[in-house]
């Protein structure tokens, strides 16, 4: 039932995508577009299959490792500095404004600078990914900690809770939702930043593959690289979402709650147990 509904909901976008690809294929064939300019989807698929072995064995591990490790570095740095900004008023007045403003700087322009400083090894790639992912995470941590419900904190205080108990019981859980939202944005930056860093020069990686293919006008291979980069980006996004569902199991009920509020007949699972009847 649920599967059927999900399939029916997604049907339009799937059908539309197939129609777009078919139009693309037909246009390329009918107009006889040279394949170094715009290859047909079938040509891209062929190129993808032909170079699948090297793409998966050589280039993918490098790029995914850069993206994953860089993202984790950003997570560690973001949580520490976000926590510090929340806890120390001086840090909030000095560091935080810079954090917010620097979010508007496109960090990709730092790539050449990182090459000058750190050469062509793995470090500049990790750093670029980490920098790109750091800002959304750090800001999300500060926002999350700040958004902790004042009433809940007051309630804990009335029970005699110490500041660290208030932090553990309310602020941290309140910040987790926000952290994962930031992490999702960061995940979509991570693969992109790794690919851009590889353009500056690298032994292997999807960015390297794309640039090399472009230099020899193997455009269908460029597209094959783009397809994989997109897939991995989506994949990382899905992984973050899966971790979020495991880490924040209550959120699904919150969503259900808002869903059922529109449709109150199906309100979540509550029915009074028989022994509670006399109280209700």
């Amino acid at each position: 039932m649920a599967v059927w509904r999900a399939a029916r909901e997604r049907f339009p976008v799937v059908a539309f995508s197939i129609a777009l690809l078919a139009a693309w294929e037909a246009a390329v064939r009918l107009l006889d577009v040279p394949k170094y300019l715009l290859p047909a989807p079938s040509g891209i698929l062929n190129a993808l299959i032909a170079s699948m072995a090297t793409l998966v064995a050589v280039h993918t591990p490098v790029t995914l490792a850069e993206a994953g490790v860089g993202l984790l570095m950003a997570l560690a740095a973001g949580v520490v500095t976000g926590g510090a900004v929340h806890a120390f008023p001086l840090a909030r007045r000095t560091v935080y404004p810079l954090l917010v403003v620097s979010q508007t700087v496109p960090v990709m322009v730092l790539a050449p600078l990182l090459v000058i400083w750190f050469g062509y090894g793995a470090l500049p790639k990790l750093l670029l990914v980490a920098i790109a992912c750091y800002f959304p995470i750090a800001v999300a941590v500060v926002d999350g900690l700040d958004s902790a419900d004042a009433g809940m904190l007051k309630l804990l205080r009335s029970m005699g809770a110490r500041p660290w108990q208030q932090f553990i019981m309310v602020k941290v859980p309140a910040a987790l939702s926000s952290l994962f939202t930031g992490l999702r944005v960061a995940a979509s930056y991570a693969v992109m930043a790794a690919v851009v860093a590889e353009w500056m020069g690298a032994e292997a990686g999807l960015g390297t593959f794309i640039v090399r293919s472009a230099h020899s006008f193997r455009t269908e291979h460029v597209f094959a690289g783009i397809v994989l980069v997109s897939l991995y980006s989506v994949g990382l996004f899905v992984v973050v979402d899966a971790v979020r569902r495991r880490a924040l199991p209550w959120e699904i009920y919150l969503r259900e709650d808002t869903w059922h509020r529109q449709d109150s007949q199906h309100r979540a699972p509550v029915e009074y147990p028989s022994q509670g009847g006399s109280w209700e």
Partner: protein
Amino acid sequence: MAKLSVRQLTKAYVERGRRLPVLNAVSFEAHAGEFVAVIGPSGCGKSTLFEIVCGLLAADAGTVEVDGEQVMGRPGWVAYMPQDDLLFPWRRLIDNVIVPLEIKGMRKEAARARALEWLPVFGLAGFEEAYPSQLSGGMRKRAALLRTFLTERDIVALDEPFGALDAHTRRKMHSWLADVHARLGRTILLITHDVEEALVLADRVIVLSRRPARVVFELAVDLPRPRDVLSPAFAAFKGALLERLADGKEGIASPVPDGVGPPWAVRLPATEGGGKR
């Protein structure tokens, strides 16, 4: 000696250089096991009064004593239930109600075991694994009340606990709370703006004036329990209370002396100048 004794509490907020007086020498007492309702116009400073009683806020002048001990500005003496249930959405019901026990340093397993015994009394048996968003409004209120009772203080302060509920659920919560009070024997302070709620539940009703709040008068509710809102005596109390709220005269209301007037008449100190509205 009174369980809780509030004397001459005065409090003003200072906002942009302007002084906004909120409480003006508020005094009252609550005896052990007594149910006291505090009623007054909205925005009169009731919540401020409760925050002071619960030690969350210090008054400018006056004292708060529990069992004769000065507790002003020291939280942890009076169990506090704010207007919103403030259940933590990330905790299951059982882990929400054990929060006060955890704060006191009790191990989670022991705290859960203790809370489980109370779930049936609060009509929550079988729901210990539910998240707050899965519960109905009435159940959330009862969970918040259980959490308040598990702070294991002799005095419980409830700030308009049933304000957001529909009339039907609220009425059920009233009879349920009256029952819990009879069983557990805690001293309960209840803020409300609902005259009927105050009369259904309380042994004594304290009426506050507009801001800055002071105690206008007290009414001892000498009605048998369970209270019948449809009885003439209840209606007489309600009428008298509403009238006093409207004319704002001060004094202590007394129950009817035996054999004077009809049994439901409520004798209040004479209102000089007649009963204008």
